[in-house]
């Protein structure tokens, strides 16, 4: 029995490794995901039926376990199937928080076991004392931070929580970490103290606060990086569970995600040309852009739907630059329709895809692929920048920071140094936005006030539909 369980765990660990490897190549990604899911299933069911504790007793409470699995599966599948493509990052954050909360709850129950002596997770819990307690505490702290942080990230992405800066917030955070450490040391030194429970639950509360305070000041545009970081935290929390139960699959899975997640976080930062430190301290959208905002209040020019339609119909080449605004308006299908009509009229249509357009890297590729836009029309930033000088119209749909010339020209701008789509090289720049409000990063965009630029206000979907009607009438 024991051997079969270990083999099942081995299968789990191997599928996680191969799954992750495959997930990092476009052709094999989907199969990799399914493989890892299969391995997870094997490990879960093997645990349910084959796990024996140190005394050789099997697990009980099957009805509870299966009820929990059933509820989780149904709710999880429904949520994941129903969520719109635009809300994907939120969903990932939410699921990540669930994992963190799971690690947190495990630590609470095991702490309770340890101190009220019902059953103990590991045979040696009573004797190993400090070591086990340390693992429980680390699992608790990291799991809790990941849980509360992910909830805030989720709230921020769906717009229910706004960015907040607290004066001296950083010092407050240091104080929080400091108190968590002090309390943990106190608990570890005197595990039998009468105040043990008070220490433990204070650590829980302070960790939760830290998660909130840690994510709160970070700008929405940086959320994917934060989610990726919290993702690796949850991985580490799961790995502590592996130590707690001497469970190899929890350990490999958790650590693998912990280290891969950290690397992924750094890669994402690199794609945006920012350092992780910069992201975490939340320089984005704080002091620097205030000065920026006051500076550039020029005149902008407006253009109507009819004029835009005429201009595009007689263009050689039109470059569409999609951004989050397109995703919010769910206008990807309408956009594809516009593209087809223009192509019928002999206009060459391309999409210029910035690597971090939208709320997450690859967001636009996913979105446009959903609308069946052919793959070869999606042009990566560097190639697009070479073609833009020979382009008649650059139509910017709900993108902002990724075309902001400040990234090239203004060293004081928080996004200075980020590669952008150089739309100004085109003959005409038409920007569709709902209003003159700055983009998600909260930075004014000088592009809107440039002589080549015309603003086409309105909801992306509505405007595109009107454009289609006009084009058909031409």
């Amino acid at each position, binding site marked *: 029995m024991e051997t079969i369980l270990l083999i099942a765990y081995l299968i789990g660990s191997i599928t996680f490794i191969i799954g992750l490897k495959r*997930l*990092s190549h*476009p052709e094999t990604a*989907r199969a990799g995901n399914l493989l890892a899911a299969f391995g997870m299933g094997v490990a879960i069911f093997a645990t349910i039926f084959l796990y024996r504790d140190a005394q050789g007793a099997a697990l009980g409470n099957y009805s509870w376990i299966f009820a929990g699995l059933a509820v989780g599966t149904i709710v999880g599948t429904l949520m994941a199937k129903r969520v719109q493509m635009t809300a994907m990052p939120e969903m990932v954050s939410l699921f990540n928080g*669930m994992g963190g909360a799971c690690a947190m709850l495990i630590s609470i129950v095991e702490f309770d076991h340890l101190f009220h002596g019902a059953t103990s997770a590991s045979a040696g819990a009573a004797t190993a004392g400090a070591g086990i307690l340390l693992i429980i505490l680390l699992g608790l702290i990291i799991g809790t931070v990941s849980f509360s942080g992910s909830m805030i990230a989720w709230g921020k992405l769906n717009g229910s929580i706004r960015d907040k800066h607290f004066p001296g917030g950083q010092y407050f955070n240091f104080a929080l970490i400091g108190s968590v450490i002090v309390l943990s040391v106190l608990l570890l030194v005197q595990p039998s103290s009468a105040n043990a429970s008070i220490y433990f639950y204070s650590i829980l509360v302070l960790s939760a606060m830290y998660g909130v305070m840690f994510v709160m000041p970070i700008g929405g545009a940086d959320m994917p990086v934060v989610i990726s970081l919290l993702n690796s935290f949850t991985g580490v929390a799961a790995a502590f569970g592996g130590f*707690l139960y001497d469970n190899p699959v929890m350990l490999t899975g958790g650590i693998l995600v912990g280290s891969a997640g950290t690397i992924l976080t750094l890669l994402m930062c690199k794609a945006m040309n920012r350092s992780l430190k910069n992201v975490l301290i939340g320089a984005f959208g704080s002091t620097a852009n205030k000065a920026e905002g006051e500076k550039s209040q020029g005149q902008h020019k407006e253009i109507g739907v009819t004029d835009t339609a005429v201009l595009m119909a007689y263009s050689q080449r039109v470059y569409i630059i999609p951004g989050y605004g397109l995703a919010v308006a769910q206008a990807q299908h309408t956009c594809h329709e516009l593209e087809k009509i223009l192509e019928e009229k002999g206009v060459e249509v391309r999409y210029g895809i910035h690597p971090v357009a939208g709320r997450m890297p690859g967001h636009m590729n996913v979105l446009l692929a959903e609308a069946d836009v052919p793959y070869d029309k999606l042009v990566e930033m560097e190639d697009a920048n070479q073609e833009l000088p020979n382009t008649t119209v650059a139509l910017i749909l709900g993108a902002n920071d990724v075309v902001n010339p400040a990234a090239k020209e203004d060293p004081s701008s928080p996004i200075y140094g980020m590669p952008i789509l150089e739309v100004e090289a085109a003959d005409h720049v038409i920007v569709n936005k709902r209003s003159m409000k700055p983009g998600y990063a909260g930075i004014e965009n000088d592009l809107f006030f440039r002589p080549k630029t015309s603003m086409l206000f309105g909801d992306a979907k509505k405007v595109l539909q009107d454009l289609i009607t006009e084009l058909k009438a031409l």
Partner: protein
Amino acid sequence: MQFIQQHYDLITIVVLSIFLGIEVISHVPSVLHTPLMSGANAIHGVVIIGAIIVMGQAQSDNYLALILGFLAVILGTLNVVGGFVVTDRMLEMFKKKKPGK
């Protein structure tokens, strides 16, 4: 320290896994960052196994363990199932555009 002796195998696994994780990920194209993050998110759902063990060992009169364990199983399952399904949905869209290539 006694702890290191007892858990030496596990510590070795940790060290090797760290390097493996770094190695496996280091050449991923930026289009795949999000699905990869989501896939990794589903994988750390292994924490569910801990939740199942907690639940399975809870005594029938220990309501704290029963309730928290039950919650932990639900949350862990959400993480696993939701994570894999969302990742699959994202990747499904990448698949579609291949014939067009």
